[in-house]
């Protein structure tokens, strides 16, 4: 008798929901291909990070409780974002540190929650993906995924198995792109200079494609690259790993300087 499939709840994230559903469906495709049964609880909205990082603990808690309720029943919770994944895995524990019943639930949730690519590589032990992408890609390490969740080698390992893709390392890949959630709203001028530096580093690699695992960073970097007219296509790493990049234009539309 085959083992029952792993039940995965997909936490879509608010930016994927609003800006780029393709990433959500790419995640579903990857998870289903790896033998998971995926569901998407409709009561999810956001992880609460904007409130949490703005000092609004009450609203952050209310939203976090919603997530606790929505994802109680799954074996795993998978998030196509290191930032939202880090919020659930680490910061919910701080939010509920003084409320033992909720803290236990938050711990239970944290233990089962993974960023998408690290779930594929570390939990499902995926060694390779069946996908093709013709191009030279460079990869930006989004801060929360890298430093809160240890996502570093996993995307590189899986990207190396994509047929036709050559990975070119990005100097300063671990330096923040300047998005920073509410930071880009509160300090747009500084944020813009940071992403300008990042865009220059990306362009200098000569890669035709930029990949990362977080929509916030991707919107920021794609927006700067198109404004500067740099011929770089920007995509979420899940789109390339799932082999669906051909189905949608890159983030921010067709890259400048290309037909």
């Amino acid at each position: 008798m085959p083992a029952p499939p792993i039940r995965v709840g997909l936490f879509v994230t608010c930016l994927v929901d609003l800006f780029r559903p393709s990433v959500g469906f790419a995640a579903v495709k990857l998870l289903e291909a790896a033998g998971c049964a995926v569901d998407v609880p409709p009561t999810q909205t956001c992880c609460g990070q904007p409130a949490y990082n703005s000092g609004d603990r009450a609203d952050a808690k209310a939203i976090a409780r919603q997530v606790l309720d929505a994802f109680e029943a799954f074996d795993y919770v998978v998030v196509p974002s290191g930032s939202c994944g880090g919020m659930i895995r680490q910061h919910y524990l701080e939010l509920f540190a003084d409320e033992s019943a909720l803290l236990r639930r938050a711990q239970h949730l944290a233990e089962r929650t993974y960023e998408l690519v690290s779930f594929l590589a570390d939990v499902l032990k995926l060694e390779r993906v069946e996908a093709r992408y013709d191009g030279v890609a460079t990869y930006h390490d989004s801060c929360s995924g890298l430093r809160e969740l240890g996502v570093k080698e996993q995307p590189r390992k899986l990207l190396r198995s994509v047929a036709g893709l050559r990975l070119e390392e990005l100097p300063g890949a671990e330096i923040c792109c300047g998005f920073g959630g509410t930071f880009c709203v509160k300090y747009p001028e500084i944020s813009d200079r940071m992403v300008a530096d990042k865009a220059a580093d990306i362009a200098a690699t000569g890669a035709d494609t930029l990949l990362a695992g977080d929509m916030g960073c991707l919107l920021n970097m794609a927006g700067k690259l198109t404004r500067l007219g740099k011929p770089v296509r920007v995509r979420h790493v899940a789109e390339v790993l799932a082999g669906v990049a051909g189905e949608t234009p890159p983030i921010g539309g067709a890259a400048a300087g290309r037909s």
Partner: protein
Amino acid sequence: MEPTSNAFKENAHRALADANLQKALGMMRRGFPNKRATALARLPEFDALREQAKAIKDHVLENLDLYLEIFEQNVIAQGGQVHWCRTPQEARETVLAICSRLDAKTVTKGKSMIAEEMALNDYLEQHGVTPVETDLGEYIIQIRKEHPSHIIAPAIHLVKEQIAESFRQTHKGLDPARPLEEASALVAEARTVLRQKFLSADVGITGANFCVAETGSTVIVTNEGNGDLTQTVTKAHIVMASLEKLVPTLEDLSTLLRLLARSATGQEFSTYTTLSTGPRRADDTDGPGEYHVVFLDNGRSAMLGTEFQDMLRCIRCGACMNHCPVYGTVGGHAYGWVYPGPIGAVLTPTLLGVDKAGHLPNASTFCGRCESVCPMKIPLPRMMRHWREHEFERKLSPAPYRYGLKAWAFLATRPPLYRFTAAVASRVLGWIGAPHGRFRSLPLAGGWTQGRDLPAPEGRSFMSLWAERRKAGP
């Protein structure tokens, strides 16, 4: 110095337009991190050392009163004196009283951030005592009438052409046609000028990287040797320190020293590590006539037992600012007070009041790089977030921002309404943005679209598409 932290945005705007500053920061951004990474690669036990170091400082902070008393007893036993000052004003008066009693006209100074915190130079000058900074970086900014922009590299905001120009203006007696293009020429000239001042100084003031309780010693680490000269040839050596500099033993000191230089400059050890224990004894060939340690509290003891206590583990290596992308973009002066970067984002609101420095804990992307490189494992982003919570509770954050957040939270806690709004928003924005896939400008997003495009949504929300897929069946 008068804080300008509330003008952080304006300060940052100026910094972004300053070509020399941007050139200097560009060199710093890769220089310090690369050197640190090279040093760490040769120290496999770095993380174990961090744990030890953290445990040492945590223990000190839990028993601070005890170690301060032991330290004082040992300083007295060595023939020195300890002065306890609650406020910068008390500390200034204490230093001036010593200088006046010794009829000091000139004091030489090694680097001290505590002296910056109490604006000691200005105070001494107002009272007829001339302070001479002897650390090269501090000397440069002193003659330029500036403040340090970095805690270990105070003149990091300058390029060498600016320094050469300042030297030509200040060192009047020298040949105006002398070459000053090379950094070595600048160092040699500063050394010649400063040597004379060392010999004529009455009192030497240094900071303290550490205070060792078991011996009553203060410790400075430098690369120029100026700190040694400052203290050995004077009537009195005055050490400016803050309470959290205490370590119990010399053994503990050596653990922390193994982390400090590597984290700061990527050196295994600074060129000079100087322990000062009491004044000159009868059979010593040199040394200061008197030895004073002036402790400034300035709000630190009030941090004990609060969510900000961890900040007192800081050993001032500067790794957090060396790796901070915001510091690396705007430089240290934008932060508007003594401590820039992530340290300043936590410490400035603590020491000055959050109403005077509310921007600083907000001006972080929470990228976490500061915490990841901190040798003392200080959770800097978490403490910045604590400050944001204080600001939110006291309604100090800008009103439009708070209302916007509340409106968003209203939606985010009502899933059906949220789903509907997201579905409509992605349709509308997707439709308007469809021709190019991006917006060059958008109402309410002017800050973003000033310098970059906003990618357009694909046109449908994930949740609405998922619901359709579910309805259609597998």
